[in-house]
């Protein structure tokens, strides 16, 4: 078979085990003598703990120990926030693993029970007697800024975690310019619950004799768990092993570090026996981070012939009761810096207030900050187009940055790597026959049918990212990636990577990279990940960075292997290195391809080392630490076509088509799968998903009965197209694709629905656009008319 598999839609090697129930997740693991932990979580959003009596629980059947904050505080440092956003007055409130005297959200841990069985542990939770004195709560970030509720942290005046500003050009002048057309919008970015199929889980094993701790944990970044876990628990990094087995979806919620994971370790160390903890689904909904939750007051200005001149806004971002690991960077760096989108917008200003609220901490959720930026911009552009009486696609065409191959600076300070935005727009418009759709729409309207077309263009920043930039923006870690490539004597290959694929298919695509670079059969490559004792340091899988950064690290390591193999082949063929040639896994003297050494020959000769050139080490192995010179910037254009029934509010999504450009595609089928998943999650926000808190801080969408996630039966066939614009700085030219769909589909859907209802005077519908809300928007518009 051909070894040139780069670009081949080969099947994912992960799937047979995952689709037949053979994947091993953390909760599938058992150790001899294992005990089980359960967390007592606060039922109140804000209260002081008046008394806490664990004596009955401690005596319950099977119970081994009950721990409260008094037990854990001396042994465990508070949870650190690891994104120290600079120049923002960042005020990090102490985040104890177990509440000491105050609970600040429904789900805050109050005590931990360890028992012989999980059921005994859960039963014993009911025997813990806690008296609370409730305090007023606040769940809405804008109200939190206005002083609703009781102060959440004594050390945080006004509940303000930070105030961050992005500014480029002179937005105020642009808005004040004579003749400027200004459109405003007030946007509620609905709070979302990531809902991975696998809830969170931890299994800890302590070996007292050596002082070594192993933590199996469902996480997107085991090395970060080791790094931060070591700080929190005081276990040296060299004696802390973190293993992420199969991880059943993360979507950003498994980036963060969680108290329960380290408490499970604490219990194992105290009791000197393995301890496991696994969330229930309803516990997941209150204990695992949420996403989005912005209130945005935004405006856009431009000329009446369609040129956008400025974007301005204020954002109140709910952060939850404590600042989670990467939380401060999400509504700021990953949001505000993308406010220019793919457009030539010279003047931008946005103030972002991060507010503590009495809710579950808010963190990264697929797209993380970028959907919130793309959404507001694309919504404003449709308003602007309507205000000046131009077609929304035309307004985008007027403002898109012209094609560039190597660097374009935008007003927020970023340098986009490469883009052909008009190319993506042209392709999607041709594919859907945009003019024809508008004609159909006019005909439908004439017949009283409400057809809508949403069209959006986007660019996103991913492949996080250059470590120097990470340091400058306060990210408490590097963002390089690593890879080790090891050729065995037989020519089989192990690749060890620092990232942690958990559904994105890199066991397959990384093998394709090896195959393409060195000509080995793709089936001769095994990709290893997720064990800090076995794999090199890495910063994890999020921010669409695994292929964009980790894939680059792999490519660099492979090129080192190729250099060594070339030198060894030259030695074996008794030719000068500069006379050597390579093709499809074969090294030969130029012009003499018949007498070649295959990569497998070289692997054997390097491993036995019988005849090495002077000074060359044995073995065929290379490692690399790749620090990207820039982020990567995938882009594209999406179209949604809907029919809306104003009488019932029902939305019928007739068509969803997209053009995404992530550079050269290693495996187009996997790219398509990532686009599908991303689009659907974005549609989920637009149409169904919303985490709702009652004013008293109770999460009322606490189960999958009340929190609606998308189902396959309500979605059309998603039409996936692409263009190919390589990144100038990536060794393989590739960009990320994990989040693109989510970043643009929410606004595409929104714009389609509003477009459908515009003849009725509707100019906004709150998300999620449930039939009730659509119907109400229609009624409100009728009253206004």
């Amino acid at each position: 078979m051909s070894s040139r598999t780069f670009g081949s839609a080969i099947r994912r090697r992960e799937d047979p085990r995952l689709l037949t129930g053979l994947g091993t997740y953390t909760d599938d693991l058992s150790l001899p003598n294992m005990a089980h932990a359960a967390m007592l979580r606060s039922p109140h959003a804000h209260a002081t703990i008046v008394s806490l009596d664990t004596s009955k629980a401690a005596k319950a059947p099977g119970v081994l120990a009950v721990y409260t904050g008094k037990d854990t505080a001396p042994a465990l440092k508070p949870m650190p926030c690891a994104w120290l956003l600079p120049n923002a007055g960042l005020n990090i409130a102490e985040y104890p693993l177990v509440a000491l005297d105050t609970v600040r959200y429904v789900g805050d841990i109050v005590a931990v029970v360890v028992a012989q069985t999980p059921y005994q542990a859960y039963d014993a939770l009911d025997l813990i007697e806690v008296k609370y004195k409730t305090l007023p709560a606040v769940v809405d970030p804008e109200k939190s800024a206005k002083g609703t509720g009781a102060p959440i942290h004594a050390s945080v005046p006004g509940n303000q975690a930070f105030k961050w500003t992005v500014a480029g050009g002179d937005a105020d002048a642009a808005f004040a310019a004579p003749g400027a057309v200004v459109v405003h919008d007030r946007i509620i970015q609905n709070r979302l619950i990531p809902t991975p199929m696998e809830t969170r889980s931890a299994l800890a094993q302590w070996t007292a004799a050596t002082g070594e701790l192993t933590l199996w944990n469902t996480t997107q970044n085991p090395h970060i768990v080791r790094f931060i876990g070591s700080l929190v628990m005081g276990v040296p990094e060299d004696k802390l092993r973190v293993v992420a087995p199969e991880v059943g979806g993360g979507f950003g919620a498994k980036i963060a570090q969680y108290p329960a994971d380290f408490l499970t370790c604490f219990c194992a160390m105290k009791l000197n026996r393995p301890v496991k903890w696994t969330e229930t689904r309803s516990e997941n909904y209150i204990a695992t981070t949420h996403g989005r939750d912005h209130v945005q007051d935004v405006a856009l200005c431009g000329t009446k012939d369609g040129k956008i001149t400025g974007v301005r806004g204020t954002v109140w971002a709910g952060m939850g009761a404590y600042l989670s690991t990467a939380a401060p960077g999400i509504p700021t760096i990953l949001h505000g810096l993308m406010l220019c989108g793919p457009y030539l917008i010279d003047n931008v200003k946005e103030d972002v207030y991060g507010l503590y609220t009495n809710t579950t901490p808010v963190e990264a959720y697929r797209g993380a900050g970028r959907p919130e930026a793309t959404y507001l911009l694309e919504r404003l552009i449709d308003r602007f187009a309507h205000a000046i009486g131009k077609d929304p696609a035309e307004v985008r065409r007027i403002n898109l940055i012209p094609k560039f191959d190597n660097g374009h600076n935008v007003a927020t300070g970023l340098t986009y790597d490469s883009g052909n935005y008009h190319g993506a727009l042209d392709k999607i418009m041709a594919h859907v026959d945009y003019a024809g759709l508008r004609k159909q729409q006019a005909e439908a309207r004439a017949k009283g049918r409400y057809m809508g077309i949403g069209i959006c263009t986007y660019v996103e920043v991913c492949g996080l990212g250059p470590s120097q930039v990470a340091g400058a923006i306060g990210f408490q870690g590097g963002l390089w990636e690593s890879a080790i490539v090891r050729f065995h004597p037989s020519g089989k290959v192990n690749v060890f990577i620092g990232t942690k694929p958990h559904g994105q298919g890199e066991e397959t695509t990384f093998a394709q990279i090896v195959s393409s670079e060195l000509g080995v059969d793709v089936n001769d490559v095994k990709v290893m990940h997720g064990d800090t004792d076995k794999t090199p340091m890495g910063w994890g899988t999020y921010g669409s960075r695994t292929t964009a950064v980790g894939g680059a690290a792999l490519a660099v390591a492979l090129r080192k292997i190729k250099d060594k193999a070339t030198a060894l082949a030259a030695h074996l063929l008794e030719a000068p290195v500069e006379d050597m040639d390579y093709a499809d896994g074969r090294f030969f003297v130029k012009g003499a391809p018949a007498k070649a050494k295959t990569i497998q020959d070289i692997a054997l000769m390097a491993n036995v080392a019988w005849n090495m050139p002077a000074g060359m080490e044995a073995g065929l192995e290379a490692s690399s630490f790749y620090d990207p010179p820039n982020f990567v910037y995938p882009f594209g254009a999406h179209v949604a076509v809907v029919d809306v029934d104003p009488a019932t509010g029902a939305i019928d999504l007739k068509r969803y088509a997209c053009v995404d450009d992530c550079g050269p595609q290693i495996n187009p089928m996997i790219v398509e799968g990532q686009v599908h998943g991303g689009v659907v999650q974005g549609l989920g926000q637009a149409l169904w998903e919303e985490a709702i808190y009652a004013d008293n801080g109770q999460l009322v969408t606490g189960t999958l009965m009340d929190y609606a996630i998308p189902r396959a039966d309500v979605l059309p066939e998603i039409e996936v197209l692409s263009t190919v614009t390589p990144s100038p700085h990536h060794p393989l030219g590739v960009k990320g694709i994990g989040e693109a769909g989510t970043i643009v589909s929410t606004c595409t859907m929104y714009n389609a629905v509003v477009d459908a209802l515009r003849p009725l005077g509707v100019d906004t519908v709150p998300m999620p656009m449930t039939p009730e809300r659509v119907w109400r928007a229609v009624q409100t518009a009728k009253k206004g008319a």
Partner: protein
Amino acid sequence: MTLDGSYRFPAPRARVWALLMDTTAIASCVPGCEALEPLGDDRYQAKLVATVAAISGSYEGTVAMADKVEPESYRLVIEGSGKHGFVNGESRIALREDGDATVVDVTGTMDVGGTIARVGQRLIGSVSKMMLDRFFACMAGKLGS
């Protein structure tokens, strides 16, 4: 959340007032009430078994009557908690004469938290109203006896 209702008793106001103060009658009419023990000062220790959505469980707490203006009105304050969460409620109960009958107006607020709030949210309002209706129907039945 609010919890309101009006209930008509075919009896004079003083008789209805006396009935509403009768803890034996109350204990036998509160759906799921297993115990109602006086703590003094119009406060009672209560034990209740209730089912909301798929969640059934027992709740313990206190019931207090306050601001009594015989035979016109009083306040009922309930604080209860159990393994599935907590229920705190406060209602004003007013008795007004309507010919030979008496109408009891209940206006209250309820604060529910924990698992019952997350899982049973959509049903809490209707279940509470049903329990309130059942309670007053039962009390009305006591008038004849």
